[in-house]
């Protein structure tokens, strides 16, 4: 057992800035539970109409890739340039493809 936690848990906050856009990470805050996290997020991150919807996720529930995995995860995409449209040479007569 680690030392007893006196702090409220940490929550990561995601805000949809307006309809049609996805939620975006804006920061974090402490709150005792999810309901309080939402109302704190409202006060901390949307004082100037920055959002139309809020997600809160307990920070400990997020699984993240580690920077040392970067090469393993992302390098294989490097040599697959044929996935990009610019890889293909087409005659100028073909417009807008």
């Amino acid at each position, binding site marked *: 057992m680690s030392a007893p936690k006196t702090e*409220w848990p940490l929550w990561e906050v995601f805000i949809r800035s307006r309809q049609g856009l996805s939620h975006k990470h804006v*920061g*974090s*805050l402490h709150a005792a*539970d999810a309901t309080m996290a939402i109302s704190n997020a409202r*006060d*901390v991150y949307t004082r100037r109409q920055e959002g139309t919807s809020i997600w809160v996720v307990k920070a400990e529930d997020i699984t993240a890739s580690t*920077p040392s995995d970067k090469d393993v995860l992302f390098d294989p995409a490097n040599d697959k340039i044929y996935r990009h449209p610019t890889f293909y040479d087409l005659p100028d007569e073909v417009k807008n493809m």
Partner: protein
Amino acid sequence: MTQEMDLNQRFEAYIASDQKIEAKDWMPDAYRKTLIRQISQHAHSEIIGMQPEGNWITRAPSLKRKSILLAKVQDEAGHGLYLYSAAETLGISRDEMLNALHTGKSKYSSIFNYPTLAWADIGAIGWLVDGAAIMNQVPLCKCSYGPYARAMVRVCKEESFHQRQGFEIMLNLSNGKPEQKEMAQDALNRWWWPSLMMFGPNDASSKHSEQNMRWKIKRFSNDELRQRFVDMTVPQAELLGLTVPDPDLNWNEATGHYDFGPINWSEFEQVVAGNGPCNRERIETRVTAHENGAWVRDAAAAYAAKSAERAASQTSAA
């Protein structure tokens, strides 16, 4: 060892190419430490900074001014919270930071150890103190540590309202009755020099500057930013019809800058050392607020635990 060297090389390469360092990236211990020190002190300054202005909320001269001041003080709380969050990404807990503030182990900006004696002080703080803060903070939006830089973008967006409302208070007082103008002048007299001190010691005697410039935490030197602040603010004082309390202040045609008189660094050192007019009161107020809020934090935590238990037992029953 070689792995450490590789990591360090990658870190240096990131810094050199102006890429951001993110929370989970490898970083030298000293970089982490200096960021924790700077970001937590910055957060503390926002939180302690609520006190001198909070002092006037109940005595604001109109409902409009009271609403504005409330919103501003609430913003300062918000800024403190963004910054504490940014510091937490470096592996320090909120409790540790608050404890360091409450025990005097961690500092905050010494400007907040001066008292707000009159309503005009609220104008002077917005105009000068927030003006100086903006000068310091805008370059931090480009700081090499991602979470700090992003928090600063948010802070800077909100800070402009703070400075403008302060200048407007000064403008109204300066255009008012002679007593009001006198009040504005008196506030300028008292806040001018402490505002110049906000940029920190002269470059020659600044402890953390050089390394922080190399790591791109800091982008401009203390003296550079101070000069910019003077150059920007003096014409604004003229616009208000107020006199900057510095007999040595002069426009220097050759340099294209204002020359200004020597700063009283022994006063600065005294205030930093804890002997300013309000140091003790500020910390006492903070600690009392924290202690008086303990039962609320405990009750909310107990309620959350109980609700979670109840929800769990209901699921298992069903």
